[in-house]
């Protein structure tokens, strides 16, 4: 398999001004906003000398253009600096939070693609019948739903009905104590606060998965609705093409027509969607991480914004943009590999 290296290289080159643009945008926003981090340490008792000392300590006595150039140079060599509010290297904070967000994004994709694709296919195959209409209504409802509300309703369901069922099943002897513990789904956090340190590796993995279930479901269902709408129209379009009619006319089983001939082509735009969905995944994770107390990038960036922590905000934006650029690139390359009609030059 030969990858289009020239294309990848040229795309990566265009990513540089894009990254520069995002850093500039972030920096200008922070500079224009009223107040600096120093205000958090200043009280009515602070002497002017002490204030000046603080300003110098945070490096804010340098002119803005110089600080900007410094940030750009440092980011170019992945030097993220020190967080002003958390007194830790920015890179440590990001490398702690990023895997969690990626885990959540992975869980989202695991829910989103199977649900979305299956729904869309079912709708297209039963076009304009009861199945199609009812699934359309369902997916449009979820599509119009705010993610935070869906997340809260899931929490409500698990905290009341689900917990009740589990405790009843345990009391009735249907479930062992162990099973009841794992099935009693937590509604926030990443790991059980009491047992987390004592877990065996497999127990730890199971516990994280159990904590991940609800956030993944909330974000996955919210995004699955869009995928289903896309999949439905894409497959409907393919089902009306000449070659599908030919496949039907030569007597292939309906399953073979759909599975071998139609679905392959209908899935192409969905693959592109995967790469392009990165910004939406990050947007959604901000909300879901806050509702479910998931320690990821979304919470980190919100904390950083509230604290006016310039290095941390810029670092988070930088990492976000890197992933978006990578997602776009993957979408292009994937499309080129899967669809021989597309030539990447």
């Amino acid at each position: 398999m030969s990858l289009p290296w020239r294309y990848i290289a040229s795309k990566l080159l265009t990513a540089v001004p894009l990254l520069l643009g995002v850093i500039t945008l972030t920096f200008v926003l922070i500079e224009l906003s009223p107040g600096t981090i120093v205000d958090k340490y200043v009280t009515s008792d602070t002497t002017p000398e002490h204030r000046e000392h603080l300003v110098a300590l945070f490096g804010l006595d340098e002119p803005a253009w110089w600080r900007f150039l410094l940030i750009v140079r440092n980011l170019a060599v992945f030097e993220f600096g020190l967080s002003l509010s958390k007194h830790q290297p920015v890179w440590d904070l990001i490398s702690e939070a990023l895997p969690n967000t990626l885990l959540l994004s992975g869980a989202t994709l695991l829910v989103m693609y199977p649900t979305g694709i299956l729904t869309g296919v079912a709708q297209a195959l039963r076009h304009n019948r009861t199945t199609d209409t009812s699934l359309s209504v369902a997916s449009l409802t979820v599509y119009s739903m705010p993610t935070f509300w869906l997340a809260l309703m899931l929490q409500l369901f698990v905290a009341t009905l689900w917990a009740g069922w589990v405790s009843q099943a345990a009391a009735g002897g249907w479930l062992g104590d162990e099973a009841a513990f794992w099935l009693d789904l937590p509604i926030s956090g990443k790991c059980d606060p009491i047992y987390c340190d004592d877990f065996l590796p497999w127990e730890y993995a199971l516990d994280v998965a159990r904590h991940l279930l609800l956030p993944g479901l909330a974000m996955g269902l919210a995004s699955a609705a869009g995928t289903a709408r896309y999949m439905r129209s894409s497959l409907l379009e393919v089902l009306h093409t000449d070659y599908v009619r030919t496949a039907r006319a030569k007597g292939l089983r309906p399953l073979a027509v759909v599975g071998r001939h139609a679905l392959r082509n209908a899935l192409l735009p969905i693959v592109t969607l995967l790469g392009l969905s990165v910004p939406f995944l990050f947007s959604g994770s901000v909300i879901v991480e806050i509702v479910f107390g998931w320690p990821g990038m979304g919470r980190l960036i919100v904390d950083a914004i509230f604290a006016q922590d310039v290095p941390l905000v810029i670092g988070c934006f930088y990492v976000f943009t890197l992933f978006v650029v990578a997602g776009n690139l993957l979408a292009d390359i994937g499309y080129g590999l899967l669809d021989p009609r597309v030539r990447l030059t």
Partner: protein
Amino acid sequence: MSPPARLGLAMPGLGHLASGRLVAGVGLLLLDAVWLGAGVLGWPRAAQLTESWHGLLSLVFWFGMAAGLWGAAWAYAFPRRLSAAERHGAMRVAWRQFRGHTTGMLGLFGVLMLLSATVLTPMLAPFDPVAIDVGDKNMPPGGVFWMGTDKFGRDVLSRLLHGGRVSLTVGFIAVSLAATIGTGVGAVAGYVGGRVDRALMWLTDLMLSVPRLVLLLAIAGLFRVPGDAKLYLLVVILGLTGWMGVSRIVRSEVLSLREREFVIAARALGMSTPRIILRHILPNALAPVIVYCSLAIGTTILAEAALSFLGLGVPPPTPTWGAMVNDARQFLRSAPWSALFPGLAIVAAVMSFNLLGDGLRDALDPKLRT
């Protein structure tokens, strides 16, 4: 013309219902219900309502709405004979297409109900949305409080109605702003081409590669403004972060229209570039923009709700749907209604705009039909 259609003169909607136009009939009857409810609840308090301009506006709007409803019933009962030119006008053709589109009509009536309920809020809302009564806190839905009360004893229904005004105002104005910016950027990029096109599309890509909610959070979190100024800030930032879709649509439309004969003719006649763009290109690129805007109002309402939910929207005590859901989190298990109803209101509003957009797409642009 036909006798059953005249039933609508008694109550708008009955005529449509009697002659078999179910969706329009039920939709008009629901609008009647909003109008009647506002009348019954509002007129006894009319003297009090005239004190604020919101109240005064709602009283005036109530008469306007009556005129609209009965006007629609009259037009249906006694249709005017149209000349051929009138019959083939672009708006009438689109309306005839749209009228037959069930889900699109559902969306249209949803939006109309939302709009009328919003303007009539001072007449409809049974209680003061910000009046705190600790004795009535977390009351379940019932006879006095139809949707219950929240943790401060405030009526959820009244807060819901008032919250709708923020959502709709922000949605409409922000999307208008976004559409204006996007149309400008797209038209210039597409028509002028070359370096300008590349620069503007780079800007579009740049804005698209930052997760929108994160950018919104950053701006709303960094620029703390007091009170009602926050509303204007929200409108501006939602507009400034929402124009990229429009600019891409307009650009691609302009690229294909630019080479058409009528544009070449206009250029040959010596028309100036701005005039060609405004008079000949943009009117032809309008349909997809309108569709996009209808869908964008839905996403904008969602974005505003998310910001309010995170405490970065219009500050309390002004009710907004997102903030209401956030307030309800503390007593989610014991008083779920104060989170349930605002959420359902968001779903209904966003869904109406989505259905309207889908219907408009099918009516305005037969090429796009799926």
